[in-house]
């Protein structure tokens, strides 16, 4: 299948600051690609380059088959963009917002009505066409913003942190819409720092300090890249158990988790034995210790902390 996004060694400097540092990746047509990372990692700068708004200082790339350096204007006709702030006009009605965006995207009047009807139906806003946008609940606004962003039938849609502050049910429904779009061949490139959202993507790239530090499907990342194991510990008096667990030399980190603990360790079997002995001795009777599949957040935090430790070592050596 064709690659809708292809970048090689993409770099963007602002003065001496390297915001994006040699990122290479490909996104296939119809793929839902998640671009994940902390604030300031370079997610938005990368998106701005992909949208043809900001030229790279090195590297190359194409979006929808057009070169991001030389064909920026062509790219803009084929992409949709939805930001965290939704860019809707609060004091316009649903209908008026759609009309406004139809104008911005220069949708021919012959097809305008059909496109607007389609967007209204997709967002499930049939009964709310004349409602003021500000009166809509977060989930509705989010779907309206997506409708506005795809009115002109773009080949790729960029969603920049689209779900901040939207509740779980609405999020689930929003993702059903995204899958619908992807099913029709639209490529979806989404940035987020919410891990539950990352779980919904076909593939994820983790970006940190301008570098791509992991790339793969959620399942690959959860089972393949974390060098440490996560142990779930069910025991009595978890608050006291936490202190005991932190004193175990084979445990790098322990945290309260529900009615038990999660412990991160390089050597799972050694840590299991040490934890069991120490907790039982302290009266925090252990009922179960077992390795669990780490969450994406476990994986990312572990990769990022390993990256930081490596950087600190390098600095110390220099």
């Amino acid at each position, binding site marked *: 299948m064709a690659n809708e996004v292809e970048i090689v060694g993409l770099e963007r400097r602002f003065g001496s600051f390297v915001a994006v540092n040699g990122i290479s990746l490909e996104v296939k047509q119809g793929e839902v690609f998640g671009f994940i990372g902390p604030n300031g990692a370079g997610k938005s700068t990368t998106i701005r380059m992909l949208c043809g708004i900001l030229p790279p200082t090195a590297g190359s790339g194409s979006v929808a088959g057009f070169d991001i350096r030389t064909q920026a204007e062509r790219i803009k006709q084929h992409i949709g963009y939805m930001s965290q702030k939704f860019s809707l006009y609060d004091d316009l009605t649903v209908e008026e917002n759609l009309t406004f965006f139809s104008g911005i995207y220069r949708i021919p009047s012959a097809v305008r009505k059909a496109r607007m009807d389609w967007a209204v139906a997709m967002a499930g806003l049939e009964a709310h066409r004349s409602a003021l946008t500000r009166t809509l609940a977060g989930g509705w606004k989010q779907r309206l913003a997506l409708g506005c962003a795809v009115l002109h039938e773009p080949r790729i849609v960029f969603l920049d942190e689209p779900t901040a502050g939207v509740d779980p049910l*609405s999020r689930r429904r929003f993702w059903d819409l995204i899958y619908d779009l992807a099913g029709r061949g639209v490529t979806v490139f989404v940035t987020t720092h919410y891990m539950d959202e990352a779980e919904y993507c076909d593939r994820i790239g983790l970006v940190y300090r301008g570098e791509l530090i992991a790339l793969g499907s959620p399942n690959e990342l959860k089972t393949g890249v974390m060098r440490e194991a996560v142990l779930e510990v069910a025991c009595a008096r978890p608050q006291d158990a936490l202190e005991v667990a932190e004193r175990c030399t084979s445990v790098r980190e322990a945290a309260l988790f529900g009615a038990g603990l999660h412990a991160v360790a390089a050597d799972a079997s050694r840590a299991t034995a040490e934890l069991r002995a120490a907790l039982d001795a302290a009266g925090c009777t252990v009922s179960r210790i077992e390795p669990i599949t780490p969450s994406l957040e476990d994986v990312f935090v572990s990769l990022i902390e390993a990256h930081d430790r490596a950087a600190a070592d390098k600095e110390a050596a220099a």
Partner: protein
Amino acid sequence: MDVHTAGQCADALVETVALTRRFGARAAVNNLSFAVGRGEIFGIVGPDGSGKTTALRLLAAILDPTSGSARVAGHDTVREAEQVKARIGYMSQRFGLYSDLTVAENLDFYADLYNVPRAGRAPAVERLLRFSGLVPFTGRFAGDLSGGMKQKLGLACTLIHTPEVLLLDEPTNGVDPVSRRDFWRMICQLVRERVTIVVTTSYLDEAERCTRVGLMHEGGLLACGTPGEVKGLLHGAVLELRCAGPRAAAAALRPRLEHSSINVFGDGIHIVTDEPAGVEEKVRGILDAAGIRTERVRRIEPGLEDVFVALLAPETGARHGE
């Protein structure tokens, strides 16, 4: 414990009885009863507009109930509001940091607000700076901090008078994963010091970290218990399916699997079903017929999100988001 009504605790630091708050005709908080014991992390999860923030403001004694009552840190939130305020830390969604004051000045300002004696204040501030990892940023203006660091400073300011009960309203909203992890490390530390915490969140992975969770809907609790107990409320089982082309597979399965809810999770599918035994064979059959190769079907522990969606979807009807 009855997971539907939240139960009572012997050493309750927060206790509400039929707590209700109306705004006009609408009951933002409706007949809410629950108790939180010392050193517990109680998580309130629920959709936007379900009453989480109003509930927290009632507990913080900054809003009076229309009926019912709440006791927090041993005092009634209406009759003894001042005693309550002196013993709690409340971090609202728009916590008031002064962006043109430095980190240290913000802490000092909150120490003044809470009448923390000047004597002994310096070591307390020092301890909070260390606790929140803000020592290197002591002289930085709060306005120049990242979102995650602002939240950590907000929490530190909330702790300046060593409250017994901490009320946190969506404290990690918009915070990146690393800062979020740091924030939860701080919460863990506080629990160890036997601080009692009530925290609202719309993120269910955070709810998993809580000692107990309450699922809030239309002002009341739809369910309440340890994460394990709440997951036990899910009728049936969750199957995880891995196959080539999960979205096509979901489309093929939906019309043919009645009484099951099918949700795509990126590269997998979750099937919530009442009869897990028969379903696996049926799934394989449907996918074979559709020419989709099944890699694996296995029963998994439901996540809180599965439970949440299963409990709330019938309540909100076919259309979500209202």
